[in-house]
């Protein structure tokens, strides 16, 4: 009912705003990204980009960055601990993270831990709500998060060093070096981040204990323009971390977790007048070690090697109509030690066909189909179809419908005991409608969507006392997202205001209750101010209450909270450009948690010096 009203309002409001003033379109510089489909084949869906200056100034982990800059809700097991996203009311495994266009969710858990991933090396992070399985495969149900290292062939030599220090003995160093010309591009980034994470907890006699963590990463991006038609690029990243897991009870046995990944992609792009050919080959490794009984060295571990090959050929039948075939092959091989998984193997072959037709600048459609083939379970036939219409520069309409899926994880299938070899993938149908209004200083967008997910995978104890994986319930999600930007200047004073509001009604179809850990409401707001060399900003987030029981008992509710972060920046230096950033997080010192009995830190401070030379 609510959904009907939303769509009615949306459609009604579009027509009244359809004709207004013109505005020049912004032409982006041509750049090479391995995730090239993001810009060329997603015209009928929403994409929000976080630019490099926001990424550079950010401190904390990827959760903190996305919490303030997107509509995604995060379930964080305490500060710095395991962080699971819920995008559009879906589960953590239904949000896919892509590194340069290739999915990197853990093969064991099916999700990305947003507190155990490096992000400082990316100059582009894009957030795309909605289904994307035709392009991005398993897990792209709630939305996709794209971490990209764009390559630009231009004369450039620079080095940026960031040094940060903050409360709870938190310390960060990041160095980013870029050297490029018309033919070559090289970028190297190294990062170290660590924290004692021992904040005081209100109304509790003991501090956050055993929460210390560190992480290290190193990455390289190399591009070589062979000739006008051919480009080779290579992406490589290595990450490792160690997190002690904060105690939920004072005398609990201490544990820690180590994660690592090593990922490489080689990409050959060949482009002619009437075709684009993209060949990619990737080798990934992920591993973890879990120490369940500190201070002893007892641990259990898992490791997966993945080989991925993708070939994509796009043929332009005419300048505005293209046909596209993609074939991809992945081979994952996992092993475990002292864990429920001894050995696990998965081979997947995928075939996709896409058609893009842009009638003119104002109107076009995109269609895609995908079928994956796998020996252990049946794969659904996937599709997506979208339409965009831009009758005037101020207004654009995007409509998209798709069928998406998520395959069971290694743990779901192979874990002994309880893994289930007869599981089916989760499947999802989704319909999404977006209105975008762009004026000179002011723009806003409104999405309404409906998602139905079946065969939800769940671990549940059976009556022989063993927890096992099962395809159980169905979920129906109705939601709306609203985003607004407004910027203006008064003399030399520049202001920028941004805000988002999301409403998510994600119901278990049998119980007719909101899914646990899914807030109905999330609001984010940001105000930035700049005056010559000085800038300041306030960021705020309101996270609605969540239930922790399936029947939505009020006694199990985690209350809503609102947080405020504030920062000040001063830019100085001529030859060597420096910026000093001072930030207060949780400025109003709110005592909050977003998972039961996992308190989060109160007011805390960070200082950062960014030097560019």
């Amino acid at each position, binding site marked *: 009912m*609510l959904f009907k*009203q*939303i769509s009615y*309002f949306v459609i009604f*409001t579009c027509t009244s705003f359809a004709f207004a003033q013109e505005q020049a379109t912004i032409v982006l510089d041509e750049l090479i990204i391995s995730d090239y489909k993001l810009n060329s084949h997603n015209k009928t869906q929403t994409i929000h980009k976080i630019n490099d200056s926001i990424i550079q100034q950010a401190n904390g982990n990827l959760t903190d960055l996305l919490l303030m800059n997107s509509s995604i809700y995060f379930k964080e*097991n305490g500060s710095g601990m395991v962080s699971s996203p819920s995008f559009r009311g879906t589960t953590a495994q239904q949000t896919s993270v892509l590194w340069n266009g290739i999915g990197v969710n853990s093969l064991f858990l099916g999700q990305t831990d947003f507190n155990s991933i490096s992000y400082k090396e990316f100059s582009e992070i894009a957030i795309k709500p909605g289904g994307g399985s035709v392009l991005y495969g398993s897990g792209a149900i709630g939305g996709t998060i794209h971490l990209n290292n764009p390559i630009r062939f231009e004369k450039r030599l620079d080095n940026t060093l960031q040094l940060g220090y903050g409360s709870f003995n938190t310390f960060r160093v990041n160095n980013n070096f870029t050297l490029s010309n018309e033919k070559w591009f090289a970028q190297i980034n190294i990062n170290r981040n660590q924290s004692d994470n021992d904040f005081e907890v209100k109304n509790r006699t003991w501090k956050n204990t055993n929460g210390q963590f560190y992480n290290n990463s190193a990455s390289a991006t190399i591009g070589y323009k062979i000739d006008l038609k051919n480009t080779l690029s290579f992406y490589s990243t290595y990450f490792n971390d160690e997190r002690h897991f904060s105690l*939920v*009870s*004072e*005398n*609990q*046995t201490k544990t820690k977790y180590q994660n690592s990944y090593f990922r490489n992609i080689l990409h050959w792009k060949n482009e002619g007048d009437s075709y684009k050919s993209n060949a990619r080959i990737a080798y990934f490794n992920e591993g973890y070690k879990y120490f*369940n*009984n500190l201070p*002893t060295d007892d641990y259990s571990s898992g490791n997966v090697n993945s080989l991925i090959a993708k070939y994509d050929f796009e043929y332009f039948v005419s300048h505005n109509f293209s046909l596209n075939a993609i074939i991809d092959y992945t081979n994952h091989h996992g092993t475990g030690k002292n864990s429920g998984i001894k050995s696990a193997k998965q081979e997947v072959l995928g075939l996709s066909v896409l058609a893009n037709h842009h009638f003119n600048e104002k109107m076009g459609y995109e269609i895609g189909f995908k079928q994956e083939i796998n020996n252990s379970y049946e794969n659904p036939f996937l599709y997506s179809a979208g339409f965009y219409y831009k009758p005037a520069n101020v207004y654009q309409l995007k409509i998209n419908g798709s069928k998406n899926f998520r395959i069971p994880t290694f743990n779901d299938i192979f874990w002994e005991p309880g893994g289930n070899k007869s599981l089916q993938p989760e499947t999802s149908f989704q319909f999404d409608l977006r209105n975008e209004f762009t004026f000179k200083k002011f723009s*806003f967008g409104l999405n309404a969507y409906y998602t139905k997910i079946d065969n939800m995978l*769940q671990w*549940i*104890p*059976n*009556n*022989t*006392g063993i927890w*096992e994986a*099962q395809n*159980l319930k169905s979920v129906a999600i109705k939601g*709306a997202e*609203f985003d607004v930007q407004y910027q203006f200047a008064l003399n030399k004073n520049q202001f920028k205001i941004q805000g988002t*509001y999301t*409403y998510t*009604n994600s119901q278990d179809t049998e119980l*007719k*209750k*909101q899914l*646990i850990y899914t807030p*109905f*409401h999330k609001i984010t707001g940001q105000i930035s101010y700049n005056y010559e060399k000085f800038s300041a900003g306030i960021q705020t987030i309101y996270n609605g209450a969540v239930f*922790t*029981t*399936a*029947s*939505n*008992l*009020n*006694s199990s509710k985690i209350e809503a909270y609102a947080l405020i972060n504030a920062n000040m920046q001063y830019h100085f230096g001529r030859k060597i450009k420096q910026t000093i950033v001072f930030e207060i997080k949780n400025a109003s010192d709110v005592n909050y948690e977003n*998972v*039961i*009995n996992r308190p989060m830190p109160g007011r805390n401070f960070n200082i950062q010096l960014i030097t560019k030379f």
Partner: protein
Amino acid sequence: MKKIILSLALLAFVSSCSNVDDNSDNTEVPNVEKPYANGILITNEGNFQSSNAEISFIKNDLSTVYNKIFATNNSNTTLGDVAQYMAFNNDLAYIVMNNSSTIEIVDRYTFKKVNQITANLNAPRAIAFSNGKIYVSNANDNTVTVYNANTNAFIKSISLDNQPEKLVATSNYVYVQSSSYASANTVEIINSSSDTNTKDLSFELPMNGITLDSNMVFVLGSDENKTEISKIENEAITKTISNVSLKSSRYLTLDNNNLYFTNGTGIYTLSKDLNSIPSSPIFNVNDNSWSTLYGFNVIDGKVFSSDANGFTDNSIVTVYDLTGNVLKTFTTEIGTNGFYKN
């Protein structure tokens, strides 16, 4: 536009509020001198890593359930993470908090906290009392730790060969049942005067239950092929019977000289003389979801069973008579795993 957004938000808010209908938790304290006497204490383990374990109480006449009795009687403090087990010694109840590595000691009739034990605990599973001492099985380091029952002072740690699960004690011995995940299927016996592991008994099948009748110990073993029940007296296995048609049986409990165990959703019984293991149940509990029979016990001729609702919701406790008639159903807390006569 702003108006529309506002009305949308309002609509959303209204619909979200109207979604919620709650069962009210009865958290009042029974108005008698010993509020929790003459009834059944229930451990609700809670969600792992969430510190939301609690204890419930049902009166013997099955008239009322009282939830959250630990918080209610202890200024709303949290009990801790994973209430695994509970046992009584004189007027005290000892609650084994597995992932808190703590034993909470409360007055068994008022539920006021008296003390706690934390020394040398490492993921404790169960507790027993013998010879003026407290014995606790620890799953993380395969030990039994020993404490003085009067002072709660740590005495010693006894190493085991296998990961322990439950333990029971007579006046001379402590019998430690190996976990069904252990590498060997054993009952390791500790002499409670010397506090040493004097004897290990080996069984054919993984251990899935242990119970005590004064000086006799009964154990249940089962796997995908069969079920076996044995009797132990002093340091020896004195009788073993098996049934090759019953697979993956669980729990073993004693009530009025009869042993009870479960298999699937079936409740089975046999005499403690161990004549034979029956092939058919006395009745089946209702199979409501995947986590039926997460908790089970037979107390004074009543069968207590819990459905843990997949740990995403409060548990449902159903009480049956011995012919399978439902006597009463209660809503308890997250992960109800045990019933204890008080």
